[in-house]
């Protein structure tokens, strides 16, 4: 592989906080998974020891992330930076809830 292409497998990590009152319940989990699925990068969310697939609603629900909980978001792949930025914005907006 030419040198120029090794940078394609990017990784982007960020710490996100659940800010909305109701926490990361089913609708926000659906919004996160829907958004994550737009990217080719692998996306994981981690809460302490537990790591889940950011593209799976059922797995995101396992985090039981209430208001104030911090999660580590990692995107790995060609569009990792874009995925990271978009997901960080969604968390920062509180999933467009109060």
């Amino acid at each position, binding site marked *: 592989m030419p040198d120029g292409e090794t940078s394609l497998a990017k990784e982007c990590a960020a710490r996100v906080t659940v800010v909305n*009152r*109701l*926490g*990361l*319940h*089913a*609708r926000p989990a*659906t919004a996160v998974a829907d958004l994550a699925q737009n990217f080719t990068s692998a996306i994981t969310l981690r809460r302490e020891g537990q790591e889940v697939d950011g593209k799976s*609603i*059922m*797995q995101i*629900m*396992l*985090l*039981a*992330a*209430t*208001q104030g909980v911090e999660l580590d978001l990692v995107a790995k792949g060609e569009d990792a930076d874009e995925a990271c930025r978009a997901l960080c914005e969604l968390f920062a907006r509180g999933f467009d809830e109060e």
Partner: protein
Amino acid sequence: MALKLTDIVAPGAVVAELNAAERDEAIQELVDALVEAGAANAEHRDALVAAVLERERKGSTGFGRGVAVPHVKHPGVTKMTAAIGRSPHGIDFSALDRQPVYSIVLLLSPDNNPEDHLRAMEVIFKSLGNETFRRFLRQAATRQDILELLNEADHQKLPG
């Protein structure tokens, strides 16, 4: 102390064979089962059904793999409770994977405790995410079979 499925599910509201062939009927049947089991207030029956259906219209809780988790947080609910319904023939829930739903867990939560609601969802999804649990639930022929399965899941006796 970790929340368990058997803490949430009202045993009397476990329906091994739903009569309903459609989503709205299934939701009514399960809310009615909770009312009959004394786990939900009859006075709020219509409001609860309407609220669960309204939530479903905002986005299907058929999350794939033949399971659906219709739910609502409602002021008419004093204590969190859940019903389980099994459909032998499958129900169209407009599921994310467009497949029929065979197992439904309907969760009613008070509207003032989002933490407990999330913990209950975690417990429910932990079981539904387990392939063995899903298969056994789909095959369970009686209420007793389902209650035993819940107990086994609570005690982590299921493989996978």
